[in-house]
């Protein structure tokens, strides 16, 4: 009897605690949502459903934030960063794990040094370097440094994966007369698909959400990433809370939708990375 009530009590306290944490996670977004529906130009209450929801605010915010241009720009930047970085990291990771690279250890240690490097630590010289390359204000100003900054993690990740690759397969391929590149291309690359596709998901998020590089290196919001564009939007409409909320929700919507659809893969990708 007493154990029955205590398990029931335990179950209730467990659910209440979890619900409280979930509420904490979701409430800021709900508050933004109800504010986005307020009368244009008004200052709505923190969390209250408006009597006349103004759905048109989302259309206004779409135009004000120039969202089409912003998404297009982010997609271009992602296309510039992710495939190139994943490809280079995969090839380098394979070589460092499976081939005898002269000075490979030194190269790997130098790369590791970049693993914990805060982006702010090099943003100052990067600005002057990009300026002297004549790239300031272009998407390449974001793409090129980002490839470099993401590279340590990519190589670290792929090397860790290829350390466990089957050497028996390599030997079998070599007996069949395949050279090193063919062995990699036909056998190890397809086998590593889970590793490099998870890496692509992580790099997509890191690029899409990148804020510091666009803030410093690109003035035109329509040539920035989503996060950089959102920052500019806040700078411009920071006091217009209705429009700002509507615009912010629209800007974060695609990544949020992709996450909700692919959440299993997303979480798996992040976890894989964390354990390595």
């Amino acid at each position: 009897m007493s154990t029955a009530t205590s398990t029931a009590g335990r179950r209730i306290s467990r659910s209440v605690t979890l619900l409280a944490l979930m509420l904490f996670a979701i409430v800021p977004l709900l508050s933004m949502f109800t504010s986005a529906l307020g009368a244009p130009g008004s200052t709505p209450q923190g969390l209250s459903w408006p009597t006349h929801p103004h759905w048109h605010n989302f259309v206004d915010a779409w135009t004000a934030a120039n969202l089409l241009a912003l998404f297009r720009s982010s997609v271009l930047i992602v296309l510039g960063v992710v495939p190139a970085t994943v490809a280079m990291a995969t090839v380098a990771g394979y070589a460092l794990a499976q081939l005898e690279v002269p000075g490979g250890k030194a190269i790997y240690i130098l790369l590791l040094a970049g693993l914990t490097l805060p982006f702010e630590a090099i943003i100052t010289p990067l600005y002057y370097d990009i300026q002297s390359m004549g790239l300031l204000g272009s998407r390449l100003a974001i793409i090129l440094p980002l490839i470099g900054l993401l590279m340590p993690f990519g190589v670290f990740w792929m090397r860790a994966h290829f350390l466990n690759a089957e050497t028996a397969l390599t030997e079998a391929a070599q007996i069949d007369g395949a050279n090193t590149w063919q062995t990699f291309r036909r056998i190890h690359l397809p086998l590593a698909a889970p590793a490099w596709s998870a890496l692509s998901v992580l790099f997509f998020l890191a690029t899409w959400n990148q804020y510091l590089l666009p803030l410093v290196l690109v003035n035109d919001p329509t040539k920035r990433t989503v996060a950089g564009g959102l920052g500019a939007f806040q700078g411009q409409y920071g006091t217009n809370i209705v429009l700002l909320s509507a615009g912010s929700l629209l800007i974060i919507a695609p990544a949020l939708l992709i996450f909700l659809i692919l959440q299993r893969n997303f979480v798996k990708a992040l976890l894989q990375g964390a354990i390595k």
Partner: protein
Amino acid sequence: MAAPRITPPVTRPQAARGRRVHRARARRWSALLWVAPAFLVYAVFVLYPILQSVQYSFYNWDGIGPATPAGLSNWKAIFTQPELLHSVEHAFVLIIFYTVLPVGLGLVAATLIRELKPGPFNTTARVVLFIPQVLPLVAAGIAWSWMYSSGGLVNQVLRAVGLGSHARAWLGDFSFALPAVGVIGIWVMLGFCTVLMLAGIGNIDPSLYEAARIDGAGRFREFLAVTFPGLRQELVVCTTFTTIAALASFDVIQISTQGGPGYQTMVPGVEIYRLTFLQQHVGQASALAVFLAALVLLVIWPIQQLGRPR
């Protein structure tokens, strides 16, 4: 590792053997080509700027005119100028919010979710808790700036429960701005820590829990004896990741307070940005930048040592 096998039978003629060794050496050098693209981009856009930062840190430079040697003055300033020193202190305060609390709450949440039966509530809890991690930090900053504003939800709740006299613009308040910014860090990090711990708990041998129960261990003892040691690796990863995020924080603070009011929420990342791009003190910014990079390594190193398999 899988070096090309070159162990020809002894009977093989000398000439063929020489050719093989030669080919192997060529293959070795060609292995450099595999690493070259990755390393070159990294060297140009990361390694070289690091060296430049070190160099700039010994000069006074406004970014345009000629630079003048500054000796160690930029470095001394980090330890003597209150505003720089405070920015570093604030970074350490943020570790409480970005690391200690999310790891603690994440453990609690993960333990609770583990006890749930698989089902819609279980899945919803995981997804909802994880959402903040997917959003750009800029969005977190915007959403919480609104939460903390005078008309925002935090004050609305306070008024509703009769504590309206405590309502204030939280991010503009000299004593509350830093903890308020810290709470945004909890919000962002909690989901990551929870999901990571959940995966870790899933890998713990269930027979250990059974054994604990047979020994009559209570919930708390069970947690201390089984869950906590079983999660060592996950705890190390979570602590490392969130500590770097705390020490190198930029996005959230740049969006929500820009370091204000006064210097109450100034952190090294924002200070580097302001010194370079608003005040044109490139040398000072670079000294702080190198200091920050070294500080992160110094703090992360001991945490990583704990993660080494015994």
